[in-house]
Every structure is written in C-alpha cells, then in structure tokens.
C-alpha cells in the first residue's frame, strides 16, 4: 500500500511595522526597555484565526499558480497548529506541492481585511513528520527564551524560568539563527537524489 506523504511547514509570522503592532511595548514610551529580540517576535492579533491563515494561503496560491495550484493544494492543506501568542504555526501539505504553499507564504506582505497589517511569513522548517516540526518549534522557543533572559538580565528583569529551560541552558549555545538559516528540508525528494548521486 502506498502511503500518502506530507510535509509539515513550521512558520513564524513577523510584524515589521511598529505602528500597527498588536501590543504595546511595556515601560515608558521612547525608552528601549524591552530587548530587541523580544520586540522582534511579536504576538499576532486574536483575530488572526487558523481559518484566516488558511484563506491567505489559498488566495496566495490561487493568485500565483491559478486554478491548477489551488486545485492541487486544496485537498491536503491543513493548519495543524497556530498560536497567536507566539505567532507560530504548523501547516500540513502534501509532499508534492509544498513548494506552491511555501511560495505563496513568501509572497504574503499584508494580512487581509479585518486585520490589515503588514507582515512577513517566514518558513523555518520543512519536515516529513509533525513530530520533527514540533521539536523544532520547541527548540526555537528555548533559544528565544534564553536570548530574552540574557538580554533582560542587565535590567533586573525577574524572569520565572521554567525547569525545562534551565536544563537546556548551554546545550546549543552557539546555535544562532538569523533570518535566512534554519530552513532545511532533509526529506525533500530532490535533495535525496542529489545525495545519492554524490555517494555513487
């Protein structure tokens, strides 16, 4: 029996425009109290629901790839997880068409009408199983917690550190991820072929 194969895209939503931000930066206005790494990853609005996210993707695919694209994508597209508080989502899509979805995500610059915010959607991980996507999300959450703490330490911010966070401290100290890295697809068929070519 042939198994239906999927890809899981882990993505972050960034809000570059400070004016339309969903939260106020704590502290006196003008004074940079909150570290930049915290400001960089802003929460989404509560109005951004998985349904809206789905609509964004569908519309994007339809504009970019027309009926062909939307037809290919629609059957398997599913939002597995979306957390507005951290602006993280996991999307499932069939293995053959995940590039269409990725392209559509990359071209999103603005959330649609009720929200109407400029945004950037960053795909940070493509994996063959949801577990690996979840693990990656956890890893990233850990790293950003650590950064926030490190930055906040000088300003005597009391941080309630969870036990899990302590344990990983220093485990991947130099695991620095910028805007571009961290996007890797170990399971993509094209790459696998290339690998085997090299080995041969």
């Amino acid at each position, binding site marked *: 029996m042939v198994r239906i194969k999927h890809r899981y895209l882990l993505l972050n939503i960034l809000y570059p425009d400070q004016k339309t931000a969903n939260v106020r930066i704590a502290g006196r206005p003008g004074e940079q109290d909150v570290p930049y790494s915290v400001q960089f990853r802003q929460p989404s609005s509560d109005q951004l629901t998985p349904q809206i996210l789905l609509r964004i993707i569908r519309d994007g695919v339809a504009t970019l790839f027309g009926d062909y694209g939307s037809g290919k994508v629609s059957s398997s597209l599913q939002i597995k997880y979306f957390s507005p508080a951290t602006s993280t989502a996991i999307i499932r899509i069939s293995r053959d068409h995940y590039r269409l979805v990725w392209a559509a995500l990359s071209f999103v610059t603005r959330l649609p009408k009720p929200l109407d915010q400029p945004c950037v959607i960053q795909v940070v991980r493509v994996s063959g199983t949801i577990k690996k996507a979840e*693990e990656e999300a956890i890893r990233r959450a850990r790293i950003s917690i650590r950064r926030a703490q490190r930055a906040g330490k000088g300003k005597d911010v009391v941080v309630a550190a969870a036990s899990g966070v302590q344990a990983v401290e220093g485990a991947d100290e130099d695991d620095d991820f910028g805007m571009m890295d961290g996007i890797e697809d170990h399971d993509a068929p094209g790459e696998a072929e290339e690998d085997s070519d090299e080995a041969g």
Partner: protein
Amino acid sequence: MAPDRPPQLPSKGQQANTKKRKDAPTSSHKGSDASNKRPKTDHRAKQRDARQLSAQTSSKAFKNGELDVDKFVRAREFEMRALEEGMARSKKALTKRAFQQVPKELRRRTASHNVKKVPKRLRERGKREMNEDNTPTVTARRRKPTPHMRLRLETVKKLRALGSKRKAEKEKAKSEKVTVTDPKATAKPIPSGPKQPPTATSIKTRVPRVKKATLARPPVPKAKFRKRQIHKSWLPTHLFHAKRARMTPPSAPLWRFSIPVTPTVKSYRPTHRASHERGAVAWDMSYMSTIGLEGRQDSIIGMLRALGVGEEELRAKRSEKWRQGTRVLETFMYEREAPHQPIAPVIVVWCVAAGDEKKSVELEKRKRKVLLRIHPSAFYQFWEEVLRLAKVAKPEVSVEDLRFEIGSIEITGPGATEALLGALWPTPSSAKEAERGASAGDAQTSKGASTVDPAADKVVIKTWSSLAGLTNPAMLPQNCMIGFDIQDPRLHHPPRTITLPKSDAEQMTLLQSIADWPVDAAQGPPELFDRRARLAASRALPSQKAINRRKGLAPPGQYPELSEKDPRIPTMLYTTAGAPSLTDRKRQAQNASWTVLLPWKCMQPVWYSLMYYPLSTGQQPRFGGLDEKRQLAFEAGQPWFPADFPGTRAGWEWEVSERVKREEEWKRRPKGKRVCWEKVELGGGRVGEVGVGWACDWERLVGGMAKEDSGTGDVEAAAAADGAGEEKMEIWMAEASAGEGAVLAQRPPTGNGNAIAKAANVASEEQAKTSVPRPTAGEDAAPPRKQATGPEITSSTNIAAPGKPPALTQLPATLANAMLESAGTVLPPHIDLSSALLTVRLTLITRGVPQTCARIYRLPSATHNAGLRKQWLALLPSNQPQHKQKGPKNALPRLPKDAPAHLLQRRLAQSLVEPPRAGEDDYPACPGEEDLVGFVTSGNFKLGEGQGTGLGSLLLERVAEGARQYGEKEGRVCIVRNAGNGVGRLARWDVV
C-alpha cells in the same frame, strides 16, 4: 459507560423490592437491547482529540496588551508545554490494543485478544478496550459446539456410559471374590514392587521376569491419543511441545518419534543469547535411545572394546573414575566386523558398584551395570551389534532395551544449574531411612535398592545443593556424574527462585566443593539403574487431584509436608561438553550442558517445573527443538550427529532425506526463480554445477568422477531422464521392496543423482514401513509381532542406506590428525584411504558465508596450476601489506567526503594494491573438479564470531598430501564455494 447503565437500574430495583408487575416485557426488552448495544466509539474522533494541540491567545498571554520579557517568556513556555504534551498524547493514542503490547514471547496464537490471556498489568486496559469495541469473548466451556463436534461429544458420552457400566460390573464381580482372599491383597491387585511386606495369608505373586534382549515397546497411550501414535510415539512432554513448537509432520515422523523441530516463536537469536549470555535452553531428549547392559565387569569391558572404545579408556589410570561410575564417557562406536563402520557417538555410564560388593568380590569379576545412550537414528544398527556381542560374551552379559523407560532432559546456558536446583528437590535421606526401615522385612527381595549408605547419600545431596551460583557446568570435573532421588516436583510447583550465594565466603565454599568434588567418593549406585526403583517411582506418582488437595491443606506460602508415601524419583545428572575435541579445549569448555536422566513416566512433571522456574536473571528457561540443538552444536563448532557424519549409515540416511527435501524445494520454485544448475559459471570457462546441486554429492566425490566426466548437464539430463527412467526405476523399486539386499547395495542402473535421491526416498520409506515393529493399539497378539520384529530388523540392517558408497567411512579425529601430520602413519587395513572422510570445522578467512552443500576445494597444485594458486594465496590477509583499517572487512576504510586531495591520491594508490574483490575481473576463479575435496554439511553465519563458519567433511586422500607438504599455514587453506554460485571464498579448516 456510565451514562448507559442508569436506565437498567430502576427496573432492577423494582424487581428486588416490590412484587409489582414488571414492566411490559416488550418495552423492557427493547430498552435493555438499546442499552446493551454500546455506542460505537469513534476512533477517528478519539484520534483527532489526541492530536489536537492547545494554543494560547494573545489577549490571554499579554494582558493589557503589554509586551515585556516576562510575558514573552511565559508565552513561549506555554507553547513548549503544549507541544510536548501534544507529542506525548498522540503517541499514547496510537491505535495499539493491550494485547499488541505484550512481549514477543508472550504473544499467543489463539484468542490472544482475550483479556484472560494478556499479562496482569495490561488486563484492566484490555478489559476496557474489549468493552469499548464489543469484542465477543467465548469461553470454551460455554461455546455452542459445531454440529460435527456435537456428534463427537454425543458418541463420547455414550461410550463413557458403556464404560462405566462395564466397570461397575467388574467391580461387583471382584467384590464377590474378595470374600475368599485376604483384603490386603485385593486392595493392591497388582504387586507394586518389592516393598510390600508379604503376609502369610496373601498369595505371593511372582515378580514378572523382564524379557531381556527384546526391543522395548512404547507405553500404551491413553485411548484418546492412541490413534495418533500408531506409526510413531510421543515424547513424554508431547502435549507441552505440540502447543508451542512446530513438530515433525504426522505423516513423516523422525526416527519414529514426534519431535519438536523448532519453537513457534522466533528463536534463533534468543536461543543464542540464552545459551551464551543469560538464561537457559532445555530440550526433551527422551528420543535418545538407552540400552542397559548387565554382567561381569570384564566381559562388559570386552564388549566395549569390540565396539571400538579406546584402550586408554578401558585400561588407563586416567579413566579410572569412569570405570568406577562417577564420570561418563562419550565416544564413537564402531561395528565389530571387518570394515568397522562407524555407528554413532555413544555415552557410556557405569553404575557405581555397591559398597559391600566392592569388598567381597574381586574387582574384575563383580557384576556391574552399564547404560549406553545413542542417537535413535543409529539405534537399530547399534542394537544389532550389541546383541551379537552379548551373545558371544562369556560370561554372559544381558542386554536390555530401556528406550521407553528412561527419558532425559538436556539443559544448557548460564542459568541451567540454577533452574535444575530449583526444579529438582532431593529426597532427604531421613525419609529414605524411614522407608528402608519399613521395608526391612523383605531385604532379600530388594537387594539392589537397600545398599545405599545414607551418610554418603547425604554428602551427595549436600554437594548438589551447594552448586547454587554455578553458571557454567564446565567448571565441574569434566563429564562428572551425580545421582540421587528427587521428590515429586509437582509438590513444589510453581517453583520459586532459589537463593544464590552473594558473599565472598559463600562463593569460596562453592569453589571449594567444586574443587574437592566429594561426590566421587560418596556416590552410591544410582537408583535409576534399578528397574524396580524406576517402576516404583512411576507407579507411586500421585494424581494431580491428590497433589492439589495436599497443597490446599498446606499453610499459605508453604509447600506441603513430605509424606512417607511420596515417590522417590530416581535421577541421574551428568555434564557433557559435546563431542570430545582434541584441537582446542577452550571451545569445549564453553558449551557444557547438563543431562538429566529420569524414568519415562516422571519426565512430564519435572519438565513443567523446569520450564516454569523463574530464573534469577529474569524470564524462564527456554525450550528448544531439533533446530536449536543443531544451532548450538554449530555455534560451538562441534559436529552434530547424524547430519555432520555422512560416513556413518545414519548420517547417510539423513543426507538422503535432506536431498529429497532440498530437491522438492527447488522444484517448487518457478523456473525463472530457481538456480539453473547447468548454467552456473564456475570460472575458468567451466559451466555447470559439480554434481547434483542440492546434494553433498559424496558418490561423485568418492568414485563417480570418471563415470560422469562431462559434469555439466547431468542434472538436466536427470530431470529429462525422469520420465524415461521411470520403468527402470519401477523395476528397481520392486526389487527393493522384494528385499534383495544385494541389489540394493549397488547403485541403480539409471545412475543419476535425481533418480538416486528419489529411489533412496522411496526405499527408505519402504524400509520405515516394513522394518520397525509397529505398536498398534488394538493388536493384542504378541507372538506374531515378535516374529515380525526379529527378521525385519535384520532386513533393515541388510538394506544398506541406498546409494551409499560401501567403503565411505568417517575417521576419528586422532587418526585423521596423525595421518595429516606424518606420511608414515599407516591406516588400519580395513579403512580404504580413497573413501575415508574427516570432519572439519571451516572458518572463512576473508568474507562470505558457507551454506549447506557448499563445495570445498583445495588450493590448486603448485605444479599444474601455479598461477591460480598464487592468485588465491595473495588473498590471504597475512600475505597483504598491513594497513590499519576500520572500514568494512577486507576493504579500505571509507574516506570523509571533504578529504583533501593528497588523501584521495593515496587512496587511489592503495586501491591499486588492494586484493581483488569478488565480482571483479581479476578475482581468482574457482579450481576445477580435480581439486574438489569435500562438502559443507552445515554452514551459516556464526553470531558469536560475526563471520561465516561451517562444518564439513573432507576426503582424506585429497588433502593429506597438501597438509603435510605445506604445513599449518598454507596446508589447511581451502576454497569454499556455495552450490549454484561461482564465487569461491578462502577458508581454513581444522579437524574436529
């Protein structure tokens, strides 16, 4: 479930409390029906719920819409928790039922979903799951019988009624008789041995004399099982094995027994682990045949000498203990007549001479008993020899067939001793003493039994129980024997883990007792040699009901008290380390095992106790079948009788039957997927397999090469000739069934392997049908059967295994070694050098795994084919430039991907000097048929060493010269090529 039940409750209450009319039957029924039908659980919904990940909204995470570090961190933590929890939840919700989670060895075939069959820790869950999806559970008791079954049950019922009626009549008749004789005698109509005190009034019954020198008949099975044992007999533990192992097919019993072949659970690796690292493996070896000899020591020794037991065993000081009876000897035995054909390895156990006899009678003239244990495939041949020898022995030696009287269990592995200690409880000598006192009246009737010295017996028992903590029986004196009586194991069932020594002092006492081994001095004659003791124990076994009653009466957590009437089961244990090997003693020490000899009827309770003993290292002893026996012999590098001894008759018969099996297997495959023997490329331009592809073609090796010089197409020719040769075959078979031994001794006129194999099969079946006495249930006429046994057995000996080259023989390792070392050694005149085989162990030097039937070649001769020889020798690792390598065996280590250029260049240079690999053009071709020296009889990948090894036989004539000329290093190198494969592999052989 809770919401479903309430509707029923009120109606129940009504029934109990009031006498009001119940609800209208229709409506209540309807209601109960509706509630009985459980709502179908939606597995999809359940799964979806389990996979749902929880997420936090921004407004909750960031109250008042403020962003600060604390809130940021908390939001991330929430996410991490949610994801982790989600992962755990979805893993748990995998659609796995409780019964799918039991360990492999606990999975059962029938009704494994039944909660009663899952282990306790999973039972609750299993119950819930069964409730949830409405799995029907049926107990056998309440099952509605099928129409066929119902008929059978009715017949059984009728027969039972008839039987009980008849029994009642018999009882009645008997009770009328009682008035005439003494009540004591009637209470036990069958005299139960010598222990019964003779009273004046009772009629003294004559103890029936055992007919010696006749073949034993299998015990008459229960009526229920009788029909299934017409052509074979069951082992005493058949019911245990039949449930858990693949048995020999009913139509083709092995050696007239139904023998477990291999357990149904996967067991190749577990067996290896249990026997080498942790645990124990046990076999019911009751199919091994036992022969008892009784007579004067010197005449028994004369018999053994005639059977080929070496002089050093019979006379030397070294084997004094064996002759005394405290050691066992495993030795190959030979026919007495001129070609001295090897028969089989035999274990010889002397009975310790009784204390008083030691002093009174002169050493050589005292009467002794000996047990001979031999593999059933060679039993008839050996029995004939022994009978013939016993007839001419003077003073006379009586021979007794003890086949269905003595059973045995073999157990090996680190936990073996522990399991035996837990299962075998020696009868304390005080109880014995009491017994003795009671039976003192008729001392003369039980003369053999009452000679045991209680103090000495105590020493033996104490030594036995001090062995706790021993992991390898090879630490004991080699081949030591210990004999004592045990209690009924069912009294202590289920067995409990024994206490093992923990402190150093305790370990020291264990070592001390092993070093001293006080058993040698204290061992009395084991009761097992005494027929009456065996019978008494078998008869005195109480019923399971009685045992249960006693266990019920015992205080909780304690075993029932020992009573006077308990049977004392005579037991004998000895350790063996397989066939004696001269080359290396280390290997031998590895695989020592215990063998327990027991009366046939007492085997089952002991077996169950052994199988359920909880080992201190966890789990229970495993059981093995024939395949496991063979596997462990192979892993120890020891030949297994009969398969690895094609020079014996039993070994030849085995080979012939295996040939047929392999041929069938080959034929079953479609043409495109089986090896096409005539197209196998052997290298050097030769095409076509040497001899018959599915056989170890000894006929061809020993004598047939000139006749079938073409070598290539003869298999296909055989297949083609199958039809044409049919007539000839039929004639030949007719002759075979007519029993003309002379015709059978030579090869049939068709002369091709296929036909031979087929004919052999037919003939052997014929032989099986005619030669062996058949214990049929209904047959009560003893004289005709007696007639039948005698001549037919002899005819079976006349029919030499079909096709076997008459002079083919197997050399003992000592003789073979001597021949290989010096040219001056002269073979005994009766051995034909051109057809003498020696058993060898093969170790593959480079790569490859030999399979059964693989062909073994010597290195090509230096004079005729020096080039090829040089090529092969270049493959030897010792002839190659040394480089430290970590990569795959016999290949260069793998370079990292980003290796610098100079490394790549060096690799290139190395690969040019690297010896050629199989499949490359310059890999040396296999030598020709003139260099064929033998065949692999069992080959496989050895788990212990991580490489292919094998056991095979070589033709001495072809290897002796090379071995002498080139010495250890090159002289014992050979080339092994699997049948149907063109690639040869280098191997080294050692005589075993």
